[in-house]
């Protein structure tokens, strides 16, 4: 039987980032059911947004991750298209203006550089926007990265560090003896290990079930329209104030709006990424045509100059949603050797760099990130904190 010090389940941006930090002094195996980065981490936007985060701990976590990005490209030795282009939240109509004024005040207090700009200033920065918008907020701290390249860069770096990556290999069971992990069963054989990291993103609950743990993570579906290549026309990422409202409302989105809120960006190769929406539809990838047209309708209202740009395909992903918007980075309460690192919802790209460091610190039992890890424990969800006896 093969053996490993650590088995990481899931080769998305989170699993590969963790592998990168754990590889230094351990035999690490990363098991991926399909291709590296082909699930959520390959069906998402590229925003590293700071201005949209909630004050308090979420901002602190996002800032810590953003700091790691400063040198990441150099560290990984590969271009990941990290760009500090700033970000904008469009305020579509006057009715959102008060709410967004309040939002800016609150974010400034929390230490984020973000300011309200009027329609003229917004259009000067983003000429694609409609002359009917009420204004926007702008932050120079928002950045972007190519998520496909990021995951590939982590994967390449870990291979250099000796991590064994198994693609097309599904984990089917986790073997427990006396309350301790002893092995991981895959469709292609068994691996003896005392430590498993569940980095399966939206699929993490299925992995946790294998050791009898229920995880409060739900797949929250999102769709992005991808356009043909066009000349550079969008600077940094654009959200709309509706997106902020939708993002911060955790209850079921209503059916007529399909949870639509604009997210707009342009890749370095020139394709526009036009999103998006938030819906709870299980793991169903077949998106109704009405949702696509609702996204298109919303986008052209805010950016009418996109009207004649051709959409060539769409991509669908499942955000690993938790009801407080924060990931779970935690040991399992009753199983020794089982760590959960999942539930990053719509921030997994932004939070991937810090997640690797947090998990490494948890495994090493140093206290460097205690303050962070204390806030990310599984037992903060009370319903899952019932003791077995």
């Amino acid at each position, binding site marked *: 039987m093969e053996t490993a010090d650590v088995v990481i389940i899931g080769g998305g941006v989170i699993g590969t980032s963790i592998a990168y930090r754990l590889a230094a002094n351990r035999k690490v195996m990363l098991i991926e059911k399909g291709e590296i980065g082909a699930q959520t981490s390959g069906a998402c936007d590229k925003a590293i947004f700071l201005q949209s985060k909630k004050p308090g701990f979420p901002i602190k976590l996002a800032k810590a991750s953003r700091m790691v990005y400063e040198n990441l490209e150099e560290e990984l030795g590969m271009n990941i298209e990290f760009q500090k282009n700033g970000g904008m939240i469009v305020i579509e109509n006057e009715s959102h203006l008060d709410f967004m004024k309040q939002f800016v005040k609150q974010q400034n207090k929390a230490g984020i550089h973000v300011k309200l700009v009027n329609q003229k200033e917004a259009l000067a920065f983003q000429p694609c926007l409609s002359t009917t918008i009420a204004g926007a907020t702008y932050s120079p701290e928002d950045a972007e990265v190519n998520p496909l390249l990021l995951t*590939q860069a982590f994967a390449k770096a870990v291979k250099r560090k000796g991590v064994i990556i198994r693609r097309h290999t599904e984990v089917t069971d986790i073997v427990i003896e006396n309350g301790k992990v002893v092995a991981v069963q895959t469709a292609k054989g068994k691996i003896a290990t005392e430590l498993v990291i569940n980095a399966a993103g939206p699929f993490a609950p299925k992995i946790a079930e294998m050791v009898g743990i229920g995880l409060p993570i739900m797949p929250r579906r999102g769709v992005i329209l991808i356009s*043909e290549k066009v000349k550079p026309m969008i600077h940094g990422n654009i959200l709309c104030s509706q997106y902020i409202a939708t993002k911060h409302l955790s209850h079921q989105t209503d059916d007529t709006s399909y949870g639509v809120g604009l997210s707009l960006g342009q890749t370095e190769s020139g394709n526009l990424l036009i999103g998006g929406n938030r819906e709870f539809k299980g793991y169903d990838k077949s998106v109704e045509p009405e949702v696509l047209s609702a996204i298109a309708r919303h986008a052209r209202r805010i950016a009418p100059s996109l009207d004649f740009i051709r959409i060539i395909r769409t991509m669908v992903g499942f955000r690993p949603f938790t009801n407080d918007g924060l990931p779970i980075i935690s040991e399992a309460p009753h199983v020794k050797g089982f760590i959960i690192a999942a539930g990053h919802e719509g921030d997994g790209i932004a939070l991937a760099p810090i997640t690797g460091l947090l998990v490494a610190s948890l495994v090493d039992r140093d206290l460097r990130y205690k303050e962070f890890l204390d806030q990310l424990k599984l037992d903060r969800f009370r319903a899952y904190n019932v003791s077995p006896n």
Partner: protein
Amino acid sequence: MIQNMLICRCEEVLLADIVASIENGAGTLKAIKMETRAGMGICQGRTCRMLLEQVMDFHTDINVQEANNLSYNNPVRPISLANLSRSGKDSEP
């Protein structure tokens, strides 16, 4: 040089890029696509998919039928954003 042969015209991916990605361990069309961008352009692989299959067939002993794990998402043909916005059932008149 045959290595400079263009396989994916939309994304300008050369035969050499595809072969390098296969040598790096890409074993399926999706893996090749994600690494090289072949098939991601405006024609969405309509031209290059057959070429890609041939390259895989030639350079690997992988069963190409099994290795074709690409899925095809809507829209099937390029459509302007304006037209897409009118195509759903409950769009405004």
